[in-house]
């Protein structure tokens, strides 16, 4: 055994990792600087160029509006921004959860049975590029104006994304890896659960991140359906009353929630896929 030649690579590994950490801190600083720069440009543009708070409020005004409506209800008989955010988040989670379950099941069946894939593929290909907004009227006809059409609309966006990414994730698990498991004495069921599905999980979470992002982008469309609460509703209402800074405040909250939830999913992904945690 040549222990010397074997010991060399691991020595290099921690060094590389420290380098990556330094690099990522540098990248984070750069990102923070870019956000601050963006805010400064926004502030200066609003103050010096546009000089009309209805057309473009300054970031400081937007922040003030946001803080104010975190405690004060909007409209006066409505909820605070926190309440609206919670309403939107509940709709998204419900739609996302239902869509994810259906999507993963569909994708698993697509990966498992070729005929099923041939059957389902055209429908997915047709629905995928359609804008969610187009379905609003028909969903109202079908489901009325309660929570159901809102949740269905979000689920409709999630299903094809999850189905495609699940099928692709299961497809890309190599036959060799499955054979390794069989050759180590694993039953077909054990191979399926502990190797094929386990190997696919990180990629399925990637699909979930995409689907979650998609859900947030469609929240305004969803809350065009006779909503009386929710961030999309606030943005639409504020638009009617030319309360521009509140529009921006709503957009900021959507952005913050979207980023926060994506960060959680990324954390989950990192725990499930050790090759990512560097």
């Amino acid at each position, binding site marked *: *055994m*040549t*222990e010397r*030649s*074997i010991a*060399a*690579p*691991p020595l290099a*590994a921690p060094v590389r990792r420290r380098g990556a950490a330094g690099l990522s801190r540098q990248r984070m600083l750069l990102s923070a600087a870019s956000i601050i720069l963006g805010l400064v440009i926004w502030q200066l543009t609003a103050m010096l160029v546009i000089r009309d708070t209805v057309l473009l409020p300054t970031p400081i005004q937007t922040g003030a509006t946001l803080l104010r409506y975190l405690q004060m209800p909007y409209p006066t008989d409505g909820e605070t921004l926190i309440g609206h955010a919670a309403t939107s988040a509940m709709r998204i989670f419900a739609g996302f959860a239902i869509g994810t379950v259906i999507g993963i099941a569909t994708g698993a069946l697509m990966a498992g049975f070729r005929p099923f894939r041939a059957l389902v593929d055209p429908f997915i290909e047709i629905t995928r590029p359609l804008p969610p907004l187009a379905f609003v009227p028909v969903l109202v006809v079908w489901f009325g104006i309660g929570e159901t059409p809102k949740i269905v609309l979000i689920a409709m966006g999630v299903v094809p994304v999850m189905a495609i990414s699940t099928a692709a994730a299961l497809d890309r698990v*190599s036959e*060799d*890896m499955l*054979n*390794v*498991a*069989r*050759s*180590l*004495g*694993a*039953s077909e069921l*054990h191979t399926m659960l*502990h*190797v094929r599905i*386990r*190997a696919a999980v*990180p990629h399925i979470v990637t699909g979930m991140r995409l689907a979650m992002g998609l859900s947030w982008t469609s929240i305004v469309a969803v809350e065009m359906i006779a909503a009386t609460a929710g961030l999309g509703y606030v943005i639409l209402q504020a638009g009617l009353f030319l309360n521009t800074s509140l529009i921006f405040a709503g957009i900021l909250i959507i952005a913050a929630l979207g980023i926060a939830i994506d960060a959680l999913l990324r954390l989950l992904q990192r725990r*499930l*896929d*050790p*090759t990512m945690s560097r």
Partner: protein
Amino acid sequence: MSGVAPGSGSGDSAQRGAAITIAGLTKTFWRGGEATEALAAIDLEVPAGAFVCLLGPSGCGKSTLLHIIAGFLKADRGEVLVDGRRVTGPGAERCMLFQSPTLFPWLTTRDNVLFGPRAQGKPRAAAEREADQLLELVGLGAFRRHYPHQLSGGMRHRAALARALINRPRILLMDEPFAALDAITRASMQEFLLELWERQRTTIIFVTHDVEEASLLGDRVCVMSPRPGRILSATEVRLPRPRGEATRDAPDFVVLRRQMRAELARACQ
């Protein structure tokens, strides 16, 4: 190291390598109505504990043959017998090692080694003890908590070997396992494998397209023809064991290597 060197105890005789008999094996692949004849009437006798190398150009059905012995593929005709029993599917007594170590990337080195015992529901404590011993044996004792992507190429192959050995397979099927390694690592892996085999006498069928590798490792080198694969010649290698780095320079080895190269060239015509 009771779990690692089955040859040492008297009660371990059943754990020794198994004999393989391959009779009249044929395999044809169909793709889009077009037939590709991969194997044409393969007959092969491998005595228990032997080290047999299958040498042939790429695309001669060597891998197909290994896949059939492993039970991943079914032959069209003919049969594979292991100690007289017919192979019908994959089994832990025949372990396959691939060109890529194919470790499970979500498991640490130690958990990779423990995959087999866990899948078969074997007692945990004993398996863990054995895994630690095996990791020491393959020189990865300090890397049991590392994930595969944190290991070097050679280390991954050692981990894959440890993962295979924990099941105490009676047959190792090796499909060009060291082909992707650099020359230095490959040489050290070859010697490591020889050392291990000397100790355990597991039956090994080793597929390679490397003349030197086949000549150095095998008791017998079978040269296969390009598609449809058949065994053209079988040469008994009488070089003394243990073999190692010095063997490569021995005059007999040089002669053998030249002879095998000629055989391979003839096979490719």
